[in-house]
């Protein structure tokens, strides 16, 4: 068991401590499409520095999580090459702003499974034995096997990193909290396409006593694991 983590708005987890084997690190959508040159977020004209900011601390946490035996789950957003799992309104909106899902780009077809842009970036790439969840939407629980995997492995606590804070990370954390998982978001291991939305997304986790869980810097989590923060 590991002791609690100094977090806000409460010391995490609420039940006092966590067992590495029952605590999964959930890495959300660290894909070229969201933080790499030529990917979807780049095509929409957002600043990649914001979505890449969390990569280095996430890599440190990932190494520590593997060392203590935490299960690691990676998620990827992407559609089938035939696009039959892409809602018509999602496709329409993407084309309207000039970054059409399924259209060719510098990293292959945008948000399509199997393309270069869909890959997880090398800094935080999965290793053999780690679960990868492919999802068609923003939430990693909808239309995927994530809940089955976590419950089958006895996982009760989740530690989140990934992008983007206000979209896929928040949606997934909301789904997880509703399902009874005790959630921690590492604030320096995530980023959004707009800095103000990143800050607001952190506040929305913490509001009303921790509606969706708690937030901590990765240094606090690493300190609890007995690992150096830098």
């Amino acid at each position: 068991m590991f002791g609690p983590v100094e977090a806000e708005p409460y010391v995490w987890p609420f039940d006092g401590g966590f067992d590495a084997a029952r605590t999964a690190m959930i890495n959300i959508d660290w894909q070229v499409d969201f933080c790499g040159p030529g990917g979807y977020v780049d095509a929409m004209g957002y600043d990649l520095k914001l979505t890449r900011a969390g990569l280095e601390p996430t890599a440190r946490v990932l190494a520590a999580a593997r060392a203590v035996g935490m299960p690691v789950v990676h998620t990827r957003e992407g559609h089938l090459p035939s696009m039959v799992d892409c809602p018509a309104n999602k496709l329409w909106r993407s084309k309207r702003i000039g970054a059409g899902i399924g259209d060719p780009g510098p990293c292959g077809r945008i948000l399509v499974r199997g393309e270069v842009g869909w890959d997880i970036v090398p800094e935080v790439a999965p290793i053999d034995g780690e679960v990868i969840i492919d999802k068609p939407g923003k939430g990693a629980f909808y239309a995927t096997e994530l809940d089955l995997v976590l419950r089958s492995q006895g996982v009760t606590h989740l530690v989140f990193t990934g992008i983007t804070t206000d979209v896929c990370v928040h949606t997934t954390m909301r789904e997880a909290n509703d399902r009874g998982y005790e959630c921690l978001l590492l604030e320096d291991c995530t980023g959004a396409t707009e800095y103000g939305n990143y800050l607001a997304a952190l506040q929305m986790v913490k509001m009303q006593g921790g509606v969706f869980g708690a937030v901590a810097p990765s240094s606090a989590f690493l300190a609890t694991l007995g690992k150096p923060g830098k």
Partner: protein
Amino acid sequence: MTALGLAVPSSEPYPWPYDEAAVADRTALVVVAAQEGLVPRCAAAPATLGIIAELTAAARAWGATVVATRHAASPAQRRPGLLPRAGTAGWNLVAGIEPDCVVDAFGVDGFTGSPLAEHLAGLDVDHLLLCGLGLEGPVHSTMRSANDRGLECLLVVDACASLDPSVADAAVRMIEMSGGIFGAVAPSSEVRRALTLTGPLSPPLEV
């Protein structure tokens, strides 16, 4: 363009809906978490509930189904949170909210532990107008899940009461990112105007 379907051309960041016009028998107004227990958590709840009542009347007169989601803490949730336990006073809908049907959810998200998705599918509804208590909480979670399911969503912004006014503007901006990542946003004045300008009938079939 047909005058018979609902369109809100001034909505942000795109003119809702994406498919030009919503027809009444495929559209629902979803009143999210308008429950006694949420009222003390949302400072603007009293004024917002008045706006919701007016919006409900306009949507019903137009012909849309009015669905209320009633949220209870999930039996899986061990940490005390935002939501009342089922059957307690805080769980009841606020007086004056009169939906055509009530869907019970066990979570902040109206789709969690609830038959909401199946209920909407059974009604053949694929366009949603969203309002309620807890803009950043139950309303946002429900809109996100509806959008992941392909439902075309319009947030009626002043018909939503904020849990934390310091993040209310950002909660709206988040919806409008990336060309409308969860749908579109419009004020109730524009939505009600569109509802009263529009006939309840489906547009004629194009042959």
